[in-house]
């Protein structure tokens, strides 16, 4: 029952990295010249156009809510309602995620939230490998 590399956990979205120890983190990229922060690797800096490729960093796992919507109707087959959230992490990276464990009426801009890694809703790829996802919870409730 040696673990097949095909069945190792996989990132459910592009910003997640899974270390050799199996632990998940969020990877951001920071421009070496202007300090601009991005959620994906680009050839040059989006902000200052520097040809120095932005360098990867491990992102903070707490932040503040910047904006949100309570989604009541979505694409077919998607469970609703849920809170779609835009979160500014403490080191300047912005992520979109689902905010869970909160009364929708109590959601406010600036509320502190924690990033929590999860099983991406239990999804599996065709080889049976699990996915690693993330969501947000109000800080202190994690």
């Amino acid at each position, binding site marked *: 029952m040696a673990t097949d590399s095909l069945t190792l956990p996989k990132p459910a*979205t592009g910003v997640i990295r899974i270390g050799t120890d199996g632990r998940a983190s969020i990877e951001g990229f920071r421009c070496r010249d202007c300090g601009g922060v991005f959620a994906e690797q680009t050839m040059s800096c989006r902000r200052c156009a520097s040809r120095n490729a932005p360098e990867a960093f491990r992102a903070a796992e707490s932040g503040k809510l910047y*904006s949100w919507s309570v989604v*009541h*109707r*979505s694409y077919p087959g998607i469970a609703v309602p849920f809170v779609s959230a*835009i979160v500014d992490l403490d080191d300047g990276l912005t992520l979109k*995620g*689902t905010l869970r464990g909160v009364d929708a009426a109590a959601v406010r801009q600036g509320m502190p939230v924690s990033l929590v890694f999860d099983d991406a809703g239990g999804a599996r790829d065709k080889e049976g490998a699990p996915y690693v*996802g993330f969501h947000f919870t109000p800080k202190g409730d994690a």
Partner: protein
Amino acid sequence: MSDVYIVGADMIAFGRYPDRTYYQLGAEASLKALDDSGLSIKDIGAVYASSCFNAQSMLGQKVLKEIGQTGVPCINVSNACASGATAVREAFIGIKSGIYDAVLVVGSEKNPRGMLGGAPHDGPPPEGLFGSESMPAVFAEAGMVHTAAYGTTIEQFAQVAVKNHHHATMNPKAAYRKETPLDEVLASEMIAWPLTKLMCSANVDGAAALVLVSEKKARELGMSRAVRIRASMLTSDPYEPRNPVMFDCNSVTRLAAAKAYEMAGLGPKDLDIVELHDCFATAEILHYENLGLCGEGEAGRLIDSGDTALGGRIPVNVSGGLLSKGHPIGATGVANMVEIVEHLRGEAGARQVTGARIGLSHVLGFGAAAGVHILEKA
């Protein structure tokens, strides 16, 4: 360089056309605009055709197969919801450069049914797992930033829908022509807080067309119904720190507006009428400030004041807007300009903005692109 004039402008009634193709709709709008101009397709030096979902299918050539294959260049453009404005700008450049004396711009679309959007992806579907990619959620989130900063209320957002639906009752070409009072807007199905169904644009089919000519040609045709293009501007989204995680509908519009005002030598206070991209009710509130119609944080009070309703200081979306006239993506930018032209000619019927001389049209494409045109009665 020659000034550029609009001498023909028309559109088909927006709605659903299950038994007709997108190029038949485009051909009908083209013939109507040509008839309005007094020109024939044989007078036209180039065709600029706009569609979001069908530009790659040679829309311009398909339109010509319906109305006359004269062998002229066809330029097919796709730029999301800014496709129509992009086609007009390219046509403007074609006349401005002196290459053409008369060109046809046609925007046509049969929108897919259901909620638009949803990018291809690897792994589990991101929708619901990593927030929402749906357009209502994206524009709800943009609106909630305004709420957090300035206290804008759901009633203020909803009043945009009340106003635009009221305007549509006076527009025979609007898809939905029914009064929708505030309680009805608020009570309709919640799609993505704070946006209810009646605060989301109407997903319909449609086509619109314009004939653009040089000053020399306009003088030949007679200037009495001509409209001058004072500014034609297109932008892509400049760097914003949260973009693309958070779609930025503001900076791309502000950049286009600033450059258009500079090109026209005019400011927001000179405008008599505005057609702006009310894809969702929140967007209209944001664009009041993006286009300089009021100061920062004042958009909620602007809708409350009635100044943007017909009869007010600066009427906005008198056509009914995307919310009730409808939003056939690739036709929208052209249709916005058809509306402005009708008002500047004094031919807008029951919804005429009295004495309108200068109007602005704006569209916003997801991804992002913004088009701003400023038109003036010649």
